[in-house]
C-alpha cells in the first residue's frame, strides 16, 4: 500500500504552497494528489489581483496592515475572526514579495516596483496584479517552484474518500483516472486544498470542476462545514456564459450603467460607487434588473446591465485588461473598446468551508485544509476581491509548515496495521458505493439532476432569500436526493470514466447544497452576501456567530460558535 508522510489533495495555489512549505521545512516525503495537472486548477483563472499593503502606488503610500485588516473585517460584515485576519494581512507583503522573488511576472510601476490597482472595499490601490491574468502568473510560478523541488505529484487522481478512524486521519482513497484503479494512500497527515463548490449553482464564474468534493468528503468524515450559507455573487459575470469580467475592470475605472444610461451605483453606495464591496454591488445590479431598469429582463439567460469601459480608451484596455477584451471577443462577439459589456451577478466564491483554525488544523488529528475549501475564517460574510489569492498562499504556507512540525514531532499514532485496516475498509466502502451506482435502476439522468440542483440553488438560495423559498429549496434538494438513488453509471469501462466521476461527485454536491440551504434558513438576519428579504437588518445580538453543520442521516445538524473580535467592534457598514 502506498504510504507518504504528507499527502496534499489539490494542486491549486493553496495545495502547491502547502507542499512547498512542508518540503522546505524538512519533510521530503510530501506528495500532491490532484484531479488535474496543477496549472489546470481553478486558481489559473483568477484575474484581478492579490491584496497586500505594499504601499507602492500613488494614493496608497501610507497603506498598512492595520488598514488592510480594517477593510477586510468591515468587508466581512464583522463575521471574520479577527485574529485570523491579522495573521493574513501581516503575511501579505512577505508572501507577495516571495512570489516576486520566485519569478512571478507582476505588472510594474515606472520605478520598477510591483504595480497595484484599486479593488472594491479598499477604494485605493492595494491589489498587486499581473495584467488581468494574476492567477495564471501565480499558479505557473508556484508549479515551477514545485518542479524545482521535485515534489512528487499523482496527477489525474481524484480523491473519493477521506479516511478517518478514532479521531485521527489515516489517509485517502483515490481513483487513478487514467487506469481506473482505486488507490489507497496512507498518510501521517493530510491536507485538503480542493477549492470551492461554485458548480452547485447555475450562473457561476467557476471552473467546471469546482463541485465541492473536498468539502463533501470532510463533511462525510464527521468534520463540520462552517458558514456555508455565505455564497459570493460576483457583480459582473459575462451575460450568457458567466465568464468573469474581473473587478479590475471597475478598478481601472469602468462604469456600471442601466437601461436609462444612469450610473446607478450613486443610489446605493454614493461614495464608493462601482468600488463598493461585491455583495452590495451585486444586490444593486439585481435590484436594477428586478425593477425594470436592466436589459432583457424576461429574456432567456436573465437580465443584465452594462459594464462600460469605452471611456478608458483602447490603449489602457489593451495594457491593463487584455484578457477581458479577449474573452469578450471570443465568447460574446463584442469589442469592449467599442461596445459596453452585458453583465449579470453570478455565483463566484464559497466563503464557508471545512472548519479549521489559523494553522489549518481541523478537529481530526492530522487533517488540515486550506484555500477556498477551508474556512479559517478570514472572509466572514463577504470576501473582498484580491483577498482569496492571498488566503490560499498565506494559509497554504502556514498549514504546510504546521503539518511538517506535526509529523516531525511524532504526529498522530503510528500503527501501520490499524491504518491499513482502516484504508482497506474505506476502499470497500467506495467500491460498494460505486456498485450501488452501477446497479441503480437508471430511470434518472444525473445531468438532469445537476441542472435542477443548480437552478434551485440560484433561484431559491440566491442573492435575495426568504423563509418560504429557502424551505422550498430544502424540500427540492431532498427530492433530488431521492431521484439520485435512481441514477445509474452507464459506462463501466475503467480508463478515464467521466460518467463514474460525475455521478459519484453528484452525491457530494447534493449534501453540500443541503448544508448551504439549511444554514441560510436558520440565519434570520442579513449579513454580507446573505440577504434575507424577511430579515433585512444585521442582527448582532442573535447572529454574530459562525454556523457549524454536522452530518447526520436526517440532514445537517447546526451548531454555532463565537466570532473572535480583537481590534474592531462591529459597527454599521456604509460605503
Amino acid at each position, binding site marked *: 500500500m502506498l504510504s507518504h508522510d504528507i499527502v496534499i489533495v489539490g494542486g491549486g495555489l493553496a495545495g502547491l504552497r502547502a507542499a512547498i512549505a512542508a518540503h522546505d521545512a524538512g519533510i521530503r516525503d510530501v506528495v500532491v494528489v490532484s484531479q488535474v495537472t496543477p496549472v489546470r486548477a481553478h486558481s489559473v*483563472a483568477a484575474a484581478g489581483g492579490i491584496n497586500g499593503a505594499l504601499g507602492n502606488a500613488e494614493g496608497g503610500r501610507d497603506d498598512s496592515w492595520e488598514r488592510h485588516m480594517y477593510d477586510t473585517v468591515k468587508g466581512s460584515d464583522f463575521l471574520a475572526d479577527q485574529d485570523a485576519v491579522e495573521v493574513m494581512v501581516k503575511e501579505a507583503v512577505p508572501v507577495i514579495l516571495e512570489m516576486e*522573488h520566485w519569478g512571478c511576472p507582476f505588472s510594474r510601476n515606472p520605478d520598477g*516596483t510591483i504595480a497595484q490597482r484599486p479593488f472594491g472595499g479598499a477604494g485605493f490601490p492595494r491589489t498587486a496584479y499581473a495584467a488581468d491574468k494574476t492567477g495564471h502568473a501565480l499558479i*505557473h510560478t508556484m508549479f515551477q517552484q514545485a518542479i524545482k523541488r521535485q515534489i512528487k505529484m499523482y496527477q489525474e487522481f481524484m480523491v473519493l474518500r477521506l479516511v478517518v478512524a478514532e479521531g485521527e486521519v489515516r489517509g485517502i482513497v483515490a481513483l487513478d483516472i487514467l487506469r481506473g484503479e482505486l488507490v489507497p494512500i496512507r498518510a501521517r497527515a493530510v491536507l485538503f486544498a480542493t477549492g470551492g463548490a461554485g458548480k452547485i449553482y447555475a450562473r457561476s464564474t467557476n471552473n*467546471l470542476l469546482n463541485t465541492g468534493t473536498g468539502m463533501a468528503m470532510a463533511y462525510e468524515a464527521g468534520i463540520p462545514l462552517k458558514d456555508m450559507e455565505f455564497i459570493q455573487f460576483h457583480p459582473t459575470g459575462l451575460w450568457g*456564459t458567466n465568464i468573469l469580467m474581473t473587478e479590475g475592470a471597475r478598478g481601472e475605472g469602468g462604469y456600471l450603467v442601466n437601461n436609462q444610461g444612469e450610473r446607478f451605483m450613486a443610489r446605493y453606495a454614493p461614495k464608493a460607487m462601482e468600488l463598493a464591496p461585491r455583495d452590495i454591488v451585486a444586490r444593486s445590479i439585481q435590484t436594477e434588473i428586478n425593477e425594470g431598469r436592466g436589459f432583457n429582463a424576461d429574456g432567456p439567460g436573465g437580465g443584465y446591465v452594462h459594464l462600460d469601459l469605452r471611456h478608458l480608451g483602447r490603449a489602457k484596455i489593451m495594457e491593463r485588461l487584455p484578457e477581458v477584451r479577449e474573452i469578450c471577443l*471570443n465568447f460574446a462577439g463584442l469589442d469592449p473598446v467599442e461596445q459596453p459589456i452585458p453583465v449579470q451577478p453570478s455565483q463566484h466564491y464559497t466563503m464557508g468551508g471545512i472548519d479549521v483554525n489559523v494553522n489549518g488544523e481541523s478537529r481530526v488529528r492530522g487533517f488540515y485544509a486550506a484555500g477556498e475549501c477551508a474556512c479559517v475564517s478570514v472572509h466572514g460574510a463577504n470576501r473582498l476581491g484580491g483577498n482569496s489569492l492571498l488566503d490560499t498562499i498565506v494559509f497554504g504556507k502556514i498549514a504546510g509548515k504546521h503539518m511538517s512540525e506535526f509529523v516531525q514531532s511524532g504526529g498522530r499514532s503510528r500503527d501501520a496495521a490499524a491504518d491499513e485496516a482502516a484504508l482497506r475498509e474505506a476502499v470497500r466502502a467506495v467500491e460498494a458505493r460505486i456498485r450501488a451506482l452501477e446497479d441503480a435502476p437508471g430511470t434518472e439522468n444525473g445531468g438532469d439532476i445537476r441542472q435542477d440542483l443548480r437552478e434551485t440553488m440560484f433561484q431559491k438560495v440566491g442573492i435575495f432569500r426568504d423563509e418560504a423559498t429557502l424551505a422550498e429549496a430544502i424540500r427540492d434538494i431532498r427530492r433530488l436526493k431521492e431521484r439520485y438513488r435512481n441514477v445509474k453509471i*452507464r459506462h463501466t469501462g475503467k480508463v478515464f470514466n467521466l460518467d463514474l466521476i460525475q455521478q459519484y461527485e453528484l452525491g457530494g454536491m447534493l449534501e453540500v447544497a443541503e448544508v448551504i440551504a439549511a444554514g441560510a434558513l436558520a440565519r434570520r438576519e442579513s449579513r454580507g452576501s446573505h440577504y434575507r428579504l424577511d430579515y433585512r437588518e444585521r442582527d448582532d445580538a442573535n447572529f454574530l456567530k459562525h454556523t457549524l453543520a454536522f452530518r447526520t442521516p436526517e440532514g445537517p445538524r447546526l451548531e454555532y460558535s463565537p466570532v473572535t473580535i480583537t481590534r474592531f467592534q462591529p459597527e454599521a457598514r456604509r460605503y
Partner: protein
Amino acid sequence: MEAFNLKIFRYDPEKDAGPHWDTFRIPYREGMTVLEALLRVVEHDDPSLAMRYSCREAICGSCAMYISGWYRLACKTQVKDALEDGTVTVSPLPHLRVIKDLVVDMEPFWRNYERIKPYLIEDGPPPERERLQTPAERAQYAEMVDCILCGACYTSCPSGVNNEEYLGPHALLWAARFYFDSRDAGKDERLNRVANENGIFRCHTAFNCVETCPKHLNQTEAIQRLKAEAVKKALALRR
C-alpha cells in the same frame, strides 16, 4: 441552424482493436462552443466519451484538440466557426499516444518543459523588497508568460514529428521567457541547454506553432531571439 453533426474520433483501449469515428446529431444554440457540444454528448448521448476540460474560458490549457482540420481549444472554438458542410470533426492532438478518445499522453510534452529548468534561477538570497523591474524590462518577456501549456504548438511542429528529443516550441518559448527576464541569473546554463540540434537549431521556421497558438504567441520569434543570443555568445568566445 437547428442542429449539426459532431463527428468524434473514438478509441477505447479496453474494447476497440483500433480507432473509429462516431457521429452525433447535436441541437444547436447560438454561441455554443465545441466543448459544450462534447459535454452534451457525455451527459446525454454517450457517457463513455473521454476528454479533458477544466476552465471553459481558454486559460487552463486542458482542452486542446484537432478540430475540423486545425489545432484549437474546444472551449474557445465556436461551433459555427468549425462547421464544414454541417459537421464539426474532432480528434485528439496528433503524434501523441491516444489513451482514450480525445485524451492523449502528454508525458513527452511535460518532460520537455521540465528539461529547460522552467523556474527563475536566482543568484544568492533575494533582496528585502521586490527586485526592481521596469515596465520596459518586463516587456522583454511579458507576452511569453501567457502560454497556457496546451500542447497545440508542440503537436503541430513538423520538426518534432517522430523526435521526442526535440524540445519543441513550448519548451523553447519558456526558455526564452526566463532568459529575457532581467531577474534571471541562469543565462549561460539556459543557452547551453537549448543551443543544440534538439533545441533552437532544429527549428526550421515552419511557423506552424505561431499559426496554431490559441494565445497568439510568437514562439518562432522567441526562438530566433535565442538563436541571436547563441550566435553572439559564440562570437564573443572566439575573440
